[in-house]
């Protein structure tokens, strides 16, 4: 260091703090303020339509909503929603089982066992799969399960088709959950004499599980409202399915059918079904938040 660097830096043009506009200070301050206002505004723009929709569904569904809505089967343009509610839950159960079976194993293998190139191929495939329009998944289910497998329009066909639709979501959550575990945790486990499978079961899975579960519930929340994968693979049956290979009604199908039904009263059923779906979706999302919160508390400090 030489002694000549003592002169004031050239930037400080004036020592009057209130008048110093060098370096675009004022422009940046204003830009900050505008963005600070604009961001909450965009959130509002996103939230208002959702609240509006939820409000109107409640307004139109609740006056005619009774316990009988949940316990009686539909009949014509009236009756309750027992059959589609049961159908929806059974289809969802089958779909979740399918999606977890394929998505979980796929995600695990991709994150833990495949090399970079192999994992890349699988991830791109899964992303493409997630981008396929749901009606095309429905068409695939129709061709594969309804016709080729000979299951007919049925609970099985609808459940597995919806499972195919949900698989990439479960895959992505699983892959991300395992791949984001810090590498030093793996080294420490293996360095302690753990076999790779012991690392996976005792260390990695407890860390990844909340994120995987969140992914599964999120996939369920997305899947439960889907109509297109069911439209070609089952029908709006008015009684709960008595087996795997008979049609199962679903709430989303009832919304679709009853909304178009010109008979008076049918539209009420559509709104009641919409209300039930809304409750299920909100419930699943709340579950996801709760899991996330608990996991954050337990894993705090791990991902630094």
């Amino acid at each position, binding site marked *: 260091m030489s002694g000549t660097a003592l002169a004031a830096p050239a930037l400080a043009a004036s020592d009057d703090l209130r008048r110093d506009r060098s370096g675009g200070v004022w422009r940046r301050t204003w830009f900050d303020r505008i963005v600070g206002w604009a961001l909450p505004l965009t959130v509002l723009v996103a939230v208002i339509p959702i609240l509006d929709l939820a409000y109107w569904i409640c307004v139109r569904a609740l006056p005619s909503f009774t316990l009988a809505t949940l316990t009686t089967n539909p009949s014509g343009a009236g009756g309750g929603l027992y059959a589609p509610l049961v159908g929806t839950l059974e289809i969802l159960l089958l779909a979740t089982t399918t999606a977890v079976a394929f998505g979980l194993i796929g995600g695990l293998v991709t994150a833990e066992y495949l090399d970079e190139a192999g994992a890349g191929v699988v991830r791109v495939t899964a992303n493409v799969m997630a981008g396929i329009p749901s009606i095309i998944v429905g068409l695939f289910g129709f061709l594969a399960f309804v016709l080729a497998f000979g299951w007919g329009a049925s609970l099985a066909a609808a459940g597995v088709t919806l499972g195919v639709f949900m698989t990439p979501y479960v895959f992505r959550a699983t892959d991300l959950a395992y791949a984001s575990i810090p590498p*030093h945790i793996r080294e420490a486990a293996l360095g302690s004499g*753990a076999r790779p499978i012991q690392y996976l079961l005792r260390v990695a899975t407890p860390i990844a599980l909340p994120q995987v579960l969140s992914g599964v519930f999120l996939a369920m929340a997305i899947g439960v409202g889907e109509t297109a994968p069911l439209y070609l693979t089952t029908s709006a049956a008015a009684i709960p399915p008595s087996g795997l290979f008979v049609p199962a009604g679903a709430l989303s199908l009832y919304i679709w059918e009853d909304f178009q039904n010109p008979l008076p009263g049918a539209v009420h059923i559509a709104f009641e079904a919409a209300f039930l779906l809304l409750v299920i979706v909100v419930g699943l999302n709340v579950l996801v938040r709760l899991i996330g919160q608990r996991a954050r508390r337990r894993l705090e400090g791990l991902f630094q």
Partner: protein
Amino acid sequence: MSGAAPVPSGPVVAVEKLSVTARGNRKLLDGIDLDFAPRSLTAIVGPSGCGKTTFVRSLNRMTELTPGLRIDGRVLYLGQNIYGRSVNPVVVRRRMGMVFQRPTVFPMSVFENAAFGLRLVRASEDEVDSAVTEALQRAGLWEEVRANLDGPALALSGGQQQRLCIARALAVRPRVLLLDEPTSALDPAATQRVEATLQRLKEEIVLILVTHNVAQAARVSDRIAFLHSGRLVEVGATGEILERPREPLTMQFITGRV
């Protein structure tokens, strides 16, 4: 302390002509010969990239977790080559524990962290209880955590976490503990406590400490091995190396010029 089995007479670990080659024929380690006697603390020092981390990782076959490394030469553990055909790396790692730069506690309770290695071999509850207590005592952490063994390990301070990692390695009663810059992420007070732990442990087992910090090597080690560009430049008693190094390169390093 009861944990250690009878002390063998020869070296516990003998490294013979050990070379590690990365892809593209780049030599990370080149013909290292080095013995480790029972009850000793050897500091492995050298500038960044000299191969000291690779060296300790090759002592318990952690190098295998990095794809593309080729190992030549032998590492003898009580006379048996750990790279021998019928030797399982998992078994090697249970005899030669490892502690890393950053504390690597798992998101479990303090007790379960210390018990991790024992659970892997399905030790009985009684064994686990006594071994965990002993390990925490040997790691110098027992007094601080005894009241809160079921609390989350991630809530401990960095220095406590690192001593818990030492306890986790000690719980399976290894003869060798490999420490890869164990204090580089810790503040001076925590560093001092870890060093005190190491000084007690070197009366019991073989410690091999990688450090870039000559002052730390001077404080805790009996012997210093100086690595440079993958070669063992010089090894000798700590006082000798610091006061009368034979090689000019060693002199340059300890005086901060390499």
